[in-house]
């Protein structure tokens, strides 16, 4: 039982890292970013590459990755996605356009990554056993979990307590109305997109310490992130975290008690149930 709790919580941390960034990008900037997983793998590649060529600690890479991916994602939003935002007549149109644009972008990122490292990003960092309340786990998972908690908490406090955070939430509720009350919507959207990208890349760098990734694996993470964001409710950081915990706990419980072969089935079953009974997501607002 304790094993399930510990492993499940740690896996939830991984899932939260995967999904929090997309939640900001989709919830606030209204960009359904299908290159989310590729940005994550890019963060992983940075950690792998710096560790194997220069013995840079992945934890240091995590810090380096923040400004680089923030600026990179800001530039992507500013020059690639802003024209789409301006041109779109409705949110639906923007979603379709952004799906196509970011889908294309994902191939470019994959191509760049393959040219740097086509094989597996195989390295080990902090791969030491550690015992938590009698259950063995690895230090790297624990570190990733703690950082995920810190990011989640910081994000939650910032969104709820700071003026800028409130502006971000306002944009996520309604772009028109927040524009009317004097919020600079394009700037807030660009900021949210860039911040989301930075969180995703940090997640990738952390995850790469315990999961062996390769350049093409991004789509797996995009799918997981999509499920979590939609389950939790678009644009609510609490939703993403709660959904990540549900998914992590259920997958671990099923793998331990029933059969590891059924983890995916269990995850999708919950997803379908939530869509059936609460289509707006756990914390989502009902569309008016």
């Amino acid at each position, binding site marked *: 039982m304790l094993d399930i709790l510990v*492993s499940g919580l740690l896996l939830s941390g*991984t899932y939260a890292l995967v999904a929090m960034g997309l939640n900001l990008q989709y919830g606030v900037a209204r960009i359904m970013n299908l290159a989310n997983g590729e940005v994550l793998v890019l963060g992983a590649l940075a950690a792998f590459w710096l560790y194997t060529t220069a013995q840079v600690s992945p934890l240091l890479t995590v810090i380096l990755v923040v400004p680089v991916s923030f600026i990179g994602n800001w530039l992507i939003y500013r020059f690639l996605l802003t024209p789409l935002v301006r041109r779109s007549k409705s949110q639906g149109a923007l979603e379709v356009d952004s799906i196509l644009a970011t889908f294309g972008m994902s191939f470019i990122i994959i191509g760049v990554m393959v040219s740097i490292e086509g094989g597996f990003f195989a390295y080990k960092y902090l791969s030491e056993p550690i015992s938590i309340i009698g259950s063995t*786990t690895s230090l790297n998972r624990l570190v990733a979990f703690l950082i995920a908690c810190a990011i989640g908490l910081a994000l939650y406090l910032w969104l709820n307590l700071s003026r800028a955070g409130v502006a971000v939430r306002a944009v996520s509720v309604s772009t028109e109305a927040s524009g009317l009350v004097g919020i600079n919507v394009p700037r807030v959207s660009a900021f949210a997109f860039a911040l989301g990208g930075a969180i995703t890349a940090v997640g990738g760098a952390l995850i790469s310490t315990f*999961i*062996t990734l*390769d350049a*093409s694996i991004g789509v797996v993470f995009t799918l997981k992130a999509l499920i979590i964001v939609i389950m939790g409710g678009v644009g609510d950081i609490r939703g993403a975290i709660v959904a990540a915990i549900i998914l992590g706990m259920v997958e*671990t419980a099923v*793998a331990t008690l029933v059969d*590891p072969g059924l983890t995916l089935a269990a995850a999708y079953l919950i997803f379908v149930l939530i869509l059936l009974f609460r289509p707006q997501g756990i914390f989502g607002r009902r569309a008016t």
Partner: protein
Amino acid sequence: MIRRNLMKLAAAGLLATSALIAGPASAQDVVKIGAIAPKTGPLAGGAVVTQWPNVQLWVEQVNARGGLNVGGKQMPIELIEYDDKTNPGEHIKLAQRLAEQDQVDFVVAPYGTGFNIATAPIYGRYGYPMIAVSAITDKMEELTERYPNLFFTLGTTTSFVDGVKEILIEKRDAGVIGNEVAMVNVADAFGIELADRARELLTEAGFELVYDRSYPLGTPDLSPVMKGAKDSGAKAFVAWSYPPDSFGLAEQAIIEDLDVAVYYSAVATSFPAFVGAYGNKIDAVLGAGGTNVDDPKIAEYRQAHLEITGKVPDYWASANTYAALQILEQAIEGAGTLDRDTVTQYIKDNSFDTVMGELTFENNVSHTFWSVGQWQDGVFRGVKGSNVEGAVPVRVKEGWAE
């Protein structure tokens, strides 16, 4: 008068066109070789280790020698390569393009069991001999009967399970393990086929599968699987696994300090990245494949691979992949023609001198291959195989310390 002139003109035109068509064909001075394999997608991580560097190595070496000697004429190789994105549909489209548009003379067989089987009809239709390497199945007889252009070189499902079974029996007889075996497999065609066969063969041999579970491809957290295997108390662990999870299982085994005397994981255990990630902790880990690094031919091949491609070859199918290209080379030169039917027949009738030794085909299947290898002091050595020399004794796994 006008009519006659027109006739003349038409005749001249006809002559000119036929000269144009015939021109390049008769003046062909390169051999076009097509290669399609993943550079992106789930199988890319394996293909960029095992498949692509060998294609590059072989083409560069042949061209450095001045090309292939086709009936007394030296013809360099022109390589045309495509990324199939690990998508069989994409591969078949590209195969058609190779045949129709690029008009390549020969092809390199695809990467992956499913891909070789899925593309056998299309390559067969154009008459290309396909010397498959990264393809393991028990249906070889049926497939080669249906597709006479298809050759297999890496062994059957049963031979891989047999290798593991022999080791388990040896270790049971030696008293290091009991009858209990913990077995897991990745839930895709490859893992399921191997696990099914292993279930039969191991039970027949008197083993009891005290833990027998599958997990989906790309499972992010394999700790429940490893905890389950550990709790079963078995002293032997067998995983029919694929690249990302072979790494993940080893990681969890180290974390859980899995107490076993025999630890086996299938694909990617033989990759240089595996020892790169875990160092000495994975000493005495068994895996699919193996090689004999002391064989001078293999040593020379590994050196050239590193020098030309800048990459260390894996300790399994890399050498077989290169050997398959050597077979193609020797068959083209031996047949002295680019005619595909003649070359295919030549492959069936002759034996070939390769880095894997002397290879011959019996009903399109070569029975020279390694099935199980083991990491011993930083080198993955072959411990079980068929018609190969240099197998070393199997060591017992003693803990996961550095």
